[in-house]
């Protein structure tokens, strides 16, 4: 996606970022002329004051006034109250802000609103014709192509443009068509099915809401129903915490440290920050922050004004040596001889990375103060807020209608939510305070673990590296990875087929293994691992996972290019048992959990600067999560029964790394025991083979 054709002003947001990044946000506010504008012959200099701009959105023209640096996304969300397009990465990496400009999808976060003047803008809110959904929206509802729904408006806009231009799109073209969008819940399988249903011209006329009695029961058993909030989510009408817009709202933004330990050098320029138009409040919070901790906060009537005020502070952080040398801990414990004692494993730290970060819209009122928090537990959130503010819980009301993902990082109430309520009380207006993407990634995560061959576990202990809340199926995926590779290693030592070895060891699941083996075509595995000719080798592997009442056997087929160390997962078969209420919802949890497990073991890694404990990749360009083109075919064999309500949100992530790791071994003969399975780790394992 790009910015579309050249527009009349000829000044991209990148030019602004360059200027702001180099000199601090104060430059624009103080009236200095942006260098980029001076360089362009004939270019007009706009601002620093508000300029008029007419935007044509969803067929209606709006005469607006805003600062020239206003992004199209900001104008849509905050000048026009079109909150369907979401702000997630704020740098064009995730596609959640996708809208159409003259019919072409663009990342509205990467474009200045002024550059969209004269163009025809369509947002998710303008896609349906009255009550009649666009075919892509209807298919998303029917095929359950969403979970939390935060990415959905962006996906729908990308997909609707793709299928309008290529009505006969193949699966690969569908994946390419939404390749710039990320879904952290990983409803990709259903998103592709929805697109293919549109290509086929499927119509969805079953009005399940009127079915009753046995007809409804049978429908639920065989097919399940679309989720209740799907229509609101595909239309961009679902309001998350980030979308709350009570009158007189102020947007609070923070500057957060990315170092384990740091101190603020010199005096932040509070005066300059307070001069930024629209800014109501600026404060330095913490001069000695830990990682992810807020250093300074600004509240303004516009989020970009708050960001500009933070830049105007010109805060310089001096990092201090703080981290622990994780590699050294690992090396010191690597004493075992793999040939005799087994394998040594290293599990990297991965992140929750929900697309909606922690956030709180606080509205201080008497006698009961209201807040909306993006949380996995509203009652716990209220308790924590009451505790922090030393008030009776009954004087607080917590609300959350929709949550943009959590995966464990929102189990504990957000520690910074009370800051929003205190600000609201002090300033006398509602305050919306959302965590920025860097902080979402720096604060959170889990899984970090090394396990040496003799069974000792070495917690790598990321002290000073941020908080480590529970992460989907806490503790289990890493334990299962170790156990699954161990099983295949033992089978190989014994000269037995891993499938037979498992069936013998785990007779209760023999039928599950057989079902999966048949579906993946187990007979195609390399009888002797790594023996296939040529540099691109295929292999098959098995894993087993269990969490609470759900359990599953996974089979993976991979392709490994042994010359460059690239692994591609071609197919997954998941034989899953556990009770379910809604068939569609259950399958979506299983495929989504499988993809999240795949994303963790294949791509994700929190990269730390060992010297200063700094997170080096706190953004969605360099913290890579699985996107549409990374998703293999996933076949789910559901063994559970309808009506027997179990929880199945976590078990599906547990068996994936083992199945893929064993498949890599089958393909190459190498044990890749260090995750993620990226070329660096794969090539090292191939060398050690």
């Amino acid at each position, binding site marked *: 996606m790009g910015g579309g054709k050249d527009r009349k002003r000829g000044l991209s947001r990148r030019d602004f970022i360059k200027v702001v990044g180099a000199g601090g946000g104060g430059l624009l506010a103080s009236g200095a002329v942006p260098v980029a504008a001076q360089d362009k012959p004939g270019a007009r200099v706009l601002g620093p004051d508000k300029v008029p701009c007419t935007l044509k959105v969803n067929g209606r023209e709006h005469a607006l006034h805003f600062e020239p640096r206003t992004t199209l996304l900001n104008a849509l969300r905050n000048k026009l109250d079109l909150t369907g397009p979401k702000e997630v990465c704020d740098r064009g990496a995730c596609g959640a802000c996708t809208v159409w400009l003259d019919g072409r999808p663009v990342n509205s976060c990467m474009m200045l609103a002024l550059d969209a003047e004269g163009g025809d803008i369509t947002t998710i809110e303008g896609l349906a014709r009255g009550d009649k959904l666009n075919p892509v929206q209807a298919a998303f509802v029917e095929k359950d192509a969403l979970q939390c729904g935060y990415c959905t408006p962006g996906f729908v806009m990308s997909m609707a443009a793709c299928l309008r231009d290529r009505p006969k799109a193949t699966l690969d073209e569908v994946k390419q068509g939404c390749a710039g969008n990320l879904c952290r819940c990983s409803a990709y399988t259903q998103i592709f099915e929805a697109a293919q249903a549109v290509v086929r011209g499927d119509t969805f006329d079953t009005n399940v809401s009127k079915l*009753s009695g*046995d007809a409804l029961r049978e429908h639920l058993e065989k097919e399940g129903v679309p989720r209740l909030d799907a229509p609101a989510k595909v239309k961009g009408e679902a309001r998350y915490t980030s979308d709350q817009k009570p009158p007189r709202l102020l947007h609070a933004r923070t500057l957060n440290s990315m170092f384990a330990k740091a101190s603020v050098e010199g005096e932040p320029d509070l005066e300059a920050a307070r001069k930024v138009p629209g800014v109501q409040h600026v404060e330095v919070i913490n001069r000695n922050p830990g990682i992810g901790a807020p250093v300074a906060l600004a509240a303004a009537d516009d989020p970009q004004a708050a960001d500009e005020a933070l830049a105007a502070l010109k805060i310089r952080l001096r990092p201090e040596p703080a981290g622990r040398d994780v590699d050294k801990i690992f090396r010191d414990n690597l004493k075992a001889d793999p040939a005799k004692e087994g394998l040594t494993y290293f599990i990297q730290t991965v992140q929750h990375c929900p697309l909606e970060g922690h956030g709180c819209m606080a509205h201080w009122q008497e006698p009961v103060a209201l807040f909306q928090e993006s949380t996995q537990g509203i*009652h716990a959130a209220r308790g924590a807020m009451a505790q922090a503010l030393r008030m009776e819980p009954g004087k607080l009301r917590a609300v959350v209608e929709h*949550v943009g993902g*959590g995966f464990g990082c929102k189990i504990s109430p957000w520690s910074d939510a009370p800051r929003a309520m205190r600000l609201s009380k002090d300033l006398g207006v509602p305050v919306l305070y959302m965590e920025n993407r860097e902080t979402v990634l720096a604060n959170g995560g889990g899984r970090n673990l090394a396990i040496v061959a003799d069974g000792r576990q070495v917690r790598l202990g990321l002290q000073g590296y941020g908080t480590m809340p529970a992460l989907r199926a806490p503790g289990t995926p890493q334990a299962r990875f170790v156990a699954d590779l161990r099983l295949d290693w033992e089978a190989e030592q014994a000269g037995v087929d891993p499938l037979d070895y498992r069936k013998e060891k785990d007779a209760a699941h023999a039928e599950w293994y057989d079902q999966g083996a048949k579906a993946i075509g187990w007979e195609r595995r390399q009888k002797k691992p790594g023996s296939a000719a040529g540099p691109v080798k295929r292999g098959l592997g098995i894993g087993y996972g269990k969490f609470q009442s759900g359990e599953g056997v996974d089979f993976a087929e991979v392709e490994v290019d042994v010359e460059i160390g690239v692994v591609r997962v071609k197919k997954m078969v998941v034989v899953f048992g556990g009770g379910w209420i809604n068939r569609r*919802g259950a399958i979506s949890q299983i495929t989504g959990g499988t993809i999240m497990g795949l994303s963790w073991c294949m791509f994700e890694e929190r990269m730390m600067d060992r010297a200063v404990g700094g997170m080096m990749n706190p953004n969605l360009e360099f913290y890579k999560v699985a996107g549409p083109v990374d998703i293999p075919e996933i076949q789910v064999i559901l063994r559970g029964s309808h009506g027997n*309500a179990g929880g199945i949100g976590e*078990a599906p992530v547990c068996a994936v790394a083992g199945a893929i790791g064993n498949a890599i071994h089958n393909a190459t003969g190498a044990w890749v025991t260090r995750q993620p399975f990226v070329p660096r780790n794969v090539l090292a394992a191939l060398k050690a083979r």
Partner: protein
Amino acid sequence: MIVAQVKIYKDGRVEALIGSQDIGGGARTVILLVTSSKLGYLPLEKVRVKIGDTDLPRSGTSAGSSTTPSVTREITAAVEEVKRRLFELVAPELGAGAADLEIRPGGKVGGRGDAAKELDWDRATRLISESIIGHVPTELKEVAIYYHADKRGKLTHVTLDDCERSA
């Protein structure tokens, strides 16, 4: 303390109220389906779900794959309670004892084993004067106690969260 509430209105509408939250796992839909299924698979359009608010009956945090099992248990218990109240209203009409009534597919209310004597859902609920409510009280009075301390760790005061306040 109440953990879930199911209301049946005179016009046949049903409301399931529970202070849970939907983080993308589909809890809202699960609550809808469980409520409908426990009322003879009542048409989904008759059931409304309200979640995500501390003014609603207290439910737990969405964690540990526990939401579906726990809301299912809580909603089922609330439905059982509201059904008992509905049967008390319907029993005289059917000339049967309330204890002998059951909900049949499609929401029909009738005596066990006697297909002839039954009322369809809308006729049965018309006997309600405005609405009837099924609560799930727990015997366990779950009270959260918060100890507040100053920066030096000295206890300053204690607050209680009894999870209810007058609406």
